[in-house]
């Protein structure tokens, strides 16, 4: 599973892109985030307030209950501010 981070989530997570192999208990975006927080590093700070975290799975906007599986590209980023 490939994780990608953008904007201040990238800065707080301390990584732009990382390959992870979470355990089978990680079935959706929400449980993936909980597992990442347990891994330490910058993830605790990055995911401290989920109200300002947005997620895309395979480049589509999704909610926290969206399933994730091996091979997915999961992106974390703040609410977008383009245009």
């Amino acid at each position, binding site marked *: 599973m490939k994780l*990608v981070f*953008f*904007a*201040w989530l990238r800065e707080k997570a301390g990584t732009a892109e990382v390959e992870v192999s979470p355990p089978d208990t990680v079935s959706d975006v929400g449980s993936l985030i909980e597992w990442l927080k347990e891994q330490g590093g910058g993830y605790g700070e990055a995911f401290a307030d989920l109200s300002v975290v947005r997620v*895309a799975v395979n*480049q*589509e*906007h999704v909610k926290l209950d969206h399933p994730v599986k091996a091979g997915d590209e999961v*992106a974390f*980023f*703040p*609410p*977008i*501010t*383009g*245009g």
Partner: protein
Amino acid sequence: MIRVQSEDFDLAAEVAAMSGGNLAIGGVCAFVGLVRDFADDDSRIKAMTLEHYPGMTEKALAGIEKEANQRWPLEASLIIHRYGRLEAGDRIVLVAAASAHRSAAFDACRFLIDWLKTEAPFWKLEEAASGTRWVEAKGSDGEVAGRWSRKE
């Protein structure tokens, strides 16, 4: 057509390329977004850097354009969004819609920019005298885009 690029664009050339030769077009509505020299809190801004999500950006913009073409009878449409470092006064984005009738051109153009602002993965890092700062999303953008939601 959609394009994601660091380079500037020429409004007249882009609109001509989009609509040129199609004699069914009665009106073209275009919107250009520019870097202002002040932030939402009125502090001074010298420049900003636009980060985006390559791959998803193109996918999102293509989806927004397709939706606009399904909703309105357009003869042509265009989205160009820049990324990288831009200074105050620089062009950021161009959206345009062409139709036989002006009403469809206006509505579709506004839809393109409203939806782009909540769907396309871009983030602005502002450079003020005090340092850099990630721009916070405005709640009003979500409300504005919400107006376009289909009633199922």
